[in-house]
């Protein structure tokens, strides 16, 4: 087992525990940057999708995983980001980067405004309030037809940065690199917040509101900050999703997407930044796996094919149930345990993590 020998406070604060860990992440980033040279356009599109979902996952992870406020309405904020971005580019002619940044900020402000009336709600009540919001936004999109195109929807404008075309279909590789850069920047900012006073305040209100207040953490302010930041990130994910889908209408941002986001962070590992990425991977890979499995079964059984309605939802539900039963800390928790098993081999004890199998207050219904 590696035990970093710390010689300064800086050592404790910096992003990576040691050079070994830093080099592993550097290798991962290098691999991600090099992917377009290996994969074909279809697969790069899929990976881009995973990256965008990871951004959305980070948005919800901040709110639910770290600040402990459950939201079942994050599809609404994806929609706000997506439409704000498309409208800003199309109607106001803003360049991509300006419009992208602004779309996030607008979504963040909307998030704070939504958060103010629901501050006093906890657990399941907050979940229901945000669920209602998600449904409301679907209808608002249809009603605000002059701006949103109603049921017909909008088409994502083309992205050009410094004269370079970055569109999803004409240059998937460049769009992928753009998304990757955005993901890296957001991840860095997120990680910085987590090691700063604001991140600790989030953890504090998640674990004990009474105690947090006694430490001088202002509840309303901190919850507003959590909502704002979460929606900022989610808005950015929404803006990217618009480009990813190319055309979108109210049906893209349904309640099902909200639930899928929540499912993503629970499967990935609630309360960890890694969890958002693992969750996005699971959510991105499973539909493809189901399709491939379906084709294979069709081949084996013979012609005619099978189309089981609701198969995807069923598989997701099953996976979620299995995770909650056997690994409440999600994929991230499982991977951490495997890693420690090999690091400590042969001294790993079965009970090493027994105490930590506790639920976050987020997961309890108050």
């Amino acid at each position, binding site marked *: 087992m590696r035990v970093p020998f710390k010689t300064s406070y800086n050592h404790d*604060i910096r992003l990576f525990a040691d050079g070994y860990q830093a080099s592993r992440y550097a290798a991962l980033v290098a691999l991600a940057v090099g992917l377009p040279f290996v994969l074909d356009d279809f697969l790069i599109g899929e990976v881009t999708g995973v990256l965008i979902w990871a951004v959305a996952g980070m948005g919800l992870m901040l709110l639910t995983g770290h600040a402990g406020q459950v939201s079942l309405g994050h599809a609404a904020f994806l929609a706000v980001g997506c439409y704000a971005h498309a409208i800003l580019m199309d109607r106001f002619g803003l360049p991509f980067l300006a419009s992208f940044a602004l779309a996030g900020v607008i979504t963040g402000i909307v998030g704070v405004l939504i958060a103010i009336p629901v501050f006093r709600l906890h657990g399941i009540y907050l979940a229901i309030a945000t669920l209602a919001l998600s449904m409301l936004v679907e209808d608002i999109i249809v009603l605000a037809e002059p701006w949103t195109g109603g049921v017909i929807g909008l088409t994502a404008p083309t992205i050009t940065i410094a004269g370079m075309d970055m569109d999803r279909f004409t240059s998937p590789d460049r769009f992928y690199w753009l998304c990757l850069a955005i993901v890296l920047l957001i991840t860095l900012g997120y990680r910085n917040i987590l090691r700063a006073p604001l991140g*600790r305040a989030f953890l504090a209100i998640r674990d004990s509101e009474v105690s947090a207040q006694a*430490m001088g953490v202002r509840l309303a302010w901190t919850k507003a900050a959590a909502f704002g930041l979460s929606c900022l990130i989610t808005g950015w994910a929404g803006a990217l999703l618009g480009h990813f889908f190319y055309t979108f209408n109210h049906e893209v941002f349904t309640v099902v997407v909200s639930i899928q986001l929540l499912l993503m962070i629970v499967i990935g590992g609630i309360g960890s930044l890694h969890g958002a990425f693992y969750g996005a991977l699971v959510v991105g890979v499973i539909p493809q796996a189901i399709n491939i499995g379906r084709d294979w079964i069709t081949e084996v059984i013979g012609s005619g094919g099978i189309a089981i309605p609701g198969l995807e939802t069923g598989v997701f539900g099953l996976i979620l149930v299995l995770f909650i039963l056997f690994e409440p800390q999600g994929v991230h928790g499982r991977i951490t345990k495997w890693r420690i098993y090999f690091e400590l081999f042969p001294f790993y004890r079965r009970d090493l993590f027994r105490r930590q199998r506790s639920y976050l207050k987020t997961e309890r219904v108050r």
Partner: protein
Amino acid sequence: MSLLDVRDITIRFGGVTALTNVSFSVEPGEIFAIVGPNGAGKSTLFNLISRFCEPDSGDVRLDGASLLGRRPADIAPLGIARTFQNIDLFETSTVLQNLLIGRHTRRRASFVSQAVFSPAARREEIAHREAVERVIDFLDLHASREQRIAGLPYGTRKVVEVGRALAMEPQIVLLDEPASGLSAEESRDMQFWISDIRAELGITILMVEHDMGLVSAVSDRVLVLAEGRVIALGSPAEVQSHPEVLHAFLGLDQSPAA
């Protein structure tokens, strides 16, 4: 002038009167203990000072300024730290993170500076880390520094909670039963720490405690509450021989007439 001044406090919860006309004041640099049987209103008094409950009448003043009308989160910045009777730590965080939350009132870095982790934010973080390290040194918490609260034994958690209050560098710290549930040895340690907190850090202490041995060993003055009323106030020795105190605690009736 006294540091903390509680004047004529009355609190009712529905039909129950938790505190009736309670008055006392804590002088700077004092160790002030509040004792009393269960249900005497000791914790209510603490919750009143931390603004978790409202009095029906009376006033609480710190340095002459009223605390009423302030929100719970505005109390810590004034220099009042507290612990809880049933340990209320941030379970999923490490000891270090818990102590760092104690530094919350002293944060300076702006939001943007935190998000990009500017050199200023880093310097501030290091300063907090140093302050926390002094607390860790003071309370001998080195061994559990990186451990999560969820896996710590009860006695250590109790100490961590005191540490979290000290990390705030408060003027006064409210300890709600610092020795409850501790073994004899841990309780002795706590006794030394309580006297050290005043002697070395110069922090005034207001504590609620059942262990009379601990109370007599460290406190300057003791307030005895029973059924929401003050029945005695004085040095530990005075209070322990006070007839009403003996009556309330032991059921002895030593009225002069008997």
